[in-house]
């Protein structure tokens, strides 16, 4: 019962933060709302006994991605947006999102999944062993992907000759 209450609180934080991201007019506030939402997701991971994911979520999203987004805002924010923050098609976007949500809810309740009643616990040791034995090659590929992406980012962002 307590976990359910905590889950509802965390879910309210997640959804409220996400609504803040898409609703606020101030871009820095949007980034901070994103941080709130992502930390709510980390709280839900803790409630599901996925502590490693919660740690990774806080470190990568809270520590890296939000900072990078703030850098992007800082470096591109000389001219404020005048007028609306949304483009003219926002009612269509809202309709599309709401209808997708309705369809997904209908699908979820039309096909209830058979699952265990309790969340299964995977401890750090199993996760690490599995990651570095069975999934070692995908792990290396992911590392190379990250390296290539960052080198590519440096090459793209470097101030070269403006074409």
């Amino acid at each position, binding site marked *: 019962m307590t976990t359910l209450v905590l889950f509802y609180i965390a879910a309210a934080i997640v959804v409220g933060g996400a609504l803040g991201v898409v609703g606020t007019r101030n871009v820095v506030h949007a980034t901070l709302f*994103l941080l709130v939402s992502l930390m709510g997701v980390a709280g839900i991971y803790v409630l*599901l006994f996925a502590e490693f*994911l919660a740690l990774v979520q806080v470190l990568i999203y809270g520590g*890296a*991605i939000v900072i990078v*987004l703030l850098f992007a805002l800082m470096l591109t924010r000389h001219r404020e947006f005048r007028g609306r923050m949304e483009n003219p098609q926002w009612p269509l976007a809202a309709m599309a999102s709401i209808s997708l*949500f309705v369809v997904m809810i209908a699908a979820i309740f039309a096909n209830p999944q058979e699952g265990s009643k309790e969340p299964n616990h995977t401890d750090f040791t199993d996760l690490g062993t599995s990651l570095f034995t069975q999934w070692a090659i995908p792990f290396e590929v992911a590392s190379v992907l990250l390296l290539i992406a960052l080198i590519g980012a440096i090459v793209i962002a470097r101030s070269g000759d*403006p074409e």
Partner: protein
Amino acid sequence: MIELAHLQVLSAGLFCIGMYGVLARRNAVLILMGIELMLNAVNLNLIGFAVFTDPDRALGQIIAIFVITVAAAEVGLALAIILRLYRQRSSVNVDELNMMKW
């Protein structure tokens, strides 16, 4: 207790909010934030199914770690592209980016 359906509903809601952000915003950085929300919704769903239906293997969490890795790479690249764009067009408004249209 938390059930799988709770997580699925939360994940669907987060995904749709993120999709609205991607479709409706004009600032490229805010669109990127919408994509982050959508990726988190996917991760939430993945972890939900992993902890409720996969009894002893860590597969769901490992795939979620890969998703987070790819999200980090994507944000880094997107920042570089946005910076380049800003330098050339002095705007990050995606409505004004029509150089690939003819």
